[in-house]
């Protein structure tokens, strides 16, 4: 099938792109002004000590050799040592990844669960108050800086109204849930730890909502546009003319096409989530990989920087391929293509 070939080709193209990216990031990181060894040791250290550290870190080797060493390390599962935590970057990433994964996944589910129905509502009630309010909300959602809305949430909902906790992933006086997956929602459910579950949920609300605000708006817009476009389409008018029930028309016929339209931007939205995580985790002191990344960026912790970027790149690539597969499954036009036409 043509689409399967397309998918395979996409997969194959992703690999050189990732390699190219690793080269790019590596080059940027190593070429930057300033001396990582000096930064690590501080201004009091002697020149000898700095040079020694440089040799240890392999910083005096030519850059392409450094790159090859590094990539070999990647395939062996080693991403270097963090200058800040003094641990293997891999260990750091494994520790912090679940928190970010949980946050982003919950935000994504929220975006889809709220954005798509809002889009449908907006389309059915086109030009009426439901449409106008949701569109205004969407415009605002897209324009608001995430840190600002996050801080406002904290100020109003958490500080002044006391409804939700200000920061963190779980109440500090509660013991951490038993570590099975690292995802608190699942772990607390499995172990029946409902106190912790409640706390986890409460802590998730603001960060997830802050993160998903703009994606909700974007999804809503796309779904609305798709539904409205379809209302004039031949197959809808014909089906209606020949007696197809209205609610079937909207909630089955049009919806599937709208889903497909939404799917086309889900990959991009995921990128949005990944980027936004840096901000949201900082504002809410969320102990995730993105907050770790911000610290790495500020302290010029190279191995950590490169590690975080690589993880994000891989995650992004995986999601995009999954989206492409889903797209092919849902939309027969893509799957079958022009080759399927019979004479």
């Amino acid at each position: 099938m043509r689409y399967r070939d397309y998918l395979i080709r996409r997969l194959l193209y992703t690999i050189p792109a990732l390699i190219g990216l690793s080269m790019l990031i590596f080059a940027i990181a190593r070429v930057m002004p300033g001396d990582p060894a000096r930064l690590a040791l501080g201004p009091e250290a002697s020149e000898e000590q700095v040079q020694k550290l440089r040799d240890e870190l392999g910083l005096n080797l030519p850059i392409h050799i450094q790159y090859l060493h590094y990539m070999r390390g990647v395939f062996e599962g080693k991403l270097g040592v963090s200058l800040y935590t003094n641990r293997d970057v891999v260990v750091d990433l494994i520790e912090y990844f679940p928190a970010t994964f949980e946050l982003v996944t919950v935000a994504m589910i929220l975006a889809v669960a709220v954005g798509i129905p809002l889009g449908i509502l907006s389309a059915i009630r086109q030009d009426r108050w439901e449409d106008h309010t949701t569109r205004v909300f969407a415009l605002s959602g897209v324009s608001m800086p995430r840190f600002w809305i996050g801080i406002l949430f904290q100020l109003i909902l958490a500080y002044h109204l006391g409804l939700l906790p200000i920061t963190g992933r779980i109440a500090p006086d509660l013991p951490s849930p038993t570590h099975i997956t690292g995802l608190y929602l699942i772990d607390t459910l499995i172990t029946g730890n409902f106190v912790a579950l409640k706390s986890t949920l409460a802590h998730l609300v603001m960060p997830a909502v802050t993160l998903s605000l703009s994606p909700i708006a974007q999804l809503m817009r796309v779904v609305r546009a798709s539904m409205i476009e379809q209302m004039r389409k031949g197959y809808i008018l014909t089906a209606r003319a020949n007696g197809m029930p209205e609610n079937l028309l909207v909630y089955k016929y049009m919806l599937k096409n709208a889903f497909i339209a939404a799917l086309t931007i889900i990959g991009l939205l995921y990128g949005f989530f990944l980027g936004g995580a840096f901000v949201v985790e900082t504002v809410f002191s969320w102990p995730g990989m993105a907050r770790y990344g911000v610290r790495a960026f500020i302290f010029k912790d190279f191995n950590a920087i490169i590690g975080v970027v690589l993880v994000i790149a891989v995650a992004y690539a995986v999601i995009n391929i999954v989206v492409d597969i889903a797209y092919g499954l849902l939309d027969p036009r893509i799957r079958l293509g022009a080759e399927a036409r019979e004479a």
Partner: protein
Amino acid sequence: MSESQTPNPEQQAQAVALGRQNAVGSYEARFEDLWRTLHRLRRSTLSLVGLGIVLGIILMAVFAPYAAPYPEDVDSVHFERVFQPPGREFLFGTDEVGRDVLSRVIFGTRISLSLGVTVLVISLSIGLPLGLIAGYMGGPVSTFIMRLTDIFLAIPPLVLALAVSAVLTPTLENSIIAISFGWWPWYTRLIQGQVLSIKEEAFVEACRSAGANPWYIAFKEILPNCLSILIIKVTLDIGYAILTGAVLGFLGLGVRPPTPEWGTMASKGRLHLPARWWMTTFSGLAIFVTVLGFNLLGDGLRDAFDVELE
């Protein structure tokens, strides 16, 4: 055909419609269309609001020293009036070294606007020619260029901007460079897609068989047809570039104080929450309003141009 273009029916349909719309894609015809579209723009209140906001921001940036009540507060300190809450004397209050927040917000328009516009200029300068070449030439050149964009698009643009600004010293120029890293590939992809769909149109074939120079075709026939999509995207993107710049500032990777960049101001103000809320709130509000303005304007333009597509 470029494999890196994920199927985007909406964009494709729009591209085809745009291409078919004006068989004579001359600049004269396009400017006529633009003028008509601008008239259409007048009918939508929201887009006019957006236009108003954008013009307001531009004016504030230009006349900042006159608009700001305390123009010297950009970098002076007044310890005698630290942490004044918003009031009659200081509309947005004062910050931790006594500077008037309103004045700094007004001066911040200069920073943000220059950032947004410069990022777009750089992205267009790199992205547009590359996209034109990729779309028109096809073959190995096109493949190479599109693979290159794949690399830069392998991570979300914000993350790339963060990574690049992490390794550079925090200045406005470096922020601009960092953001542009992640911005230009979108333009290459967009233009390449447009060129591909317009290339097949009859009038281009006619030009080519008449023996016209490829650069001529590119600039005189193909580019004018992309103009409306480009204008819409650029308008929206200026807002988003400003937003990204603010995020960089907020995370500490952007400009350094005392430069009155809104994100940096919000970040500094955050240290004094919750009691002294006005610094973060008003600098964030400035970002919100600015981006909203560009979004309203861009949306309005999109509606105005789209009406033509029907």
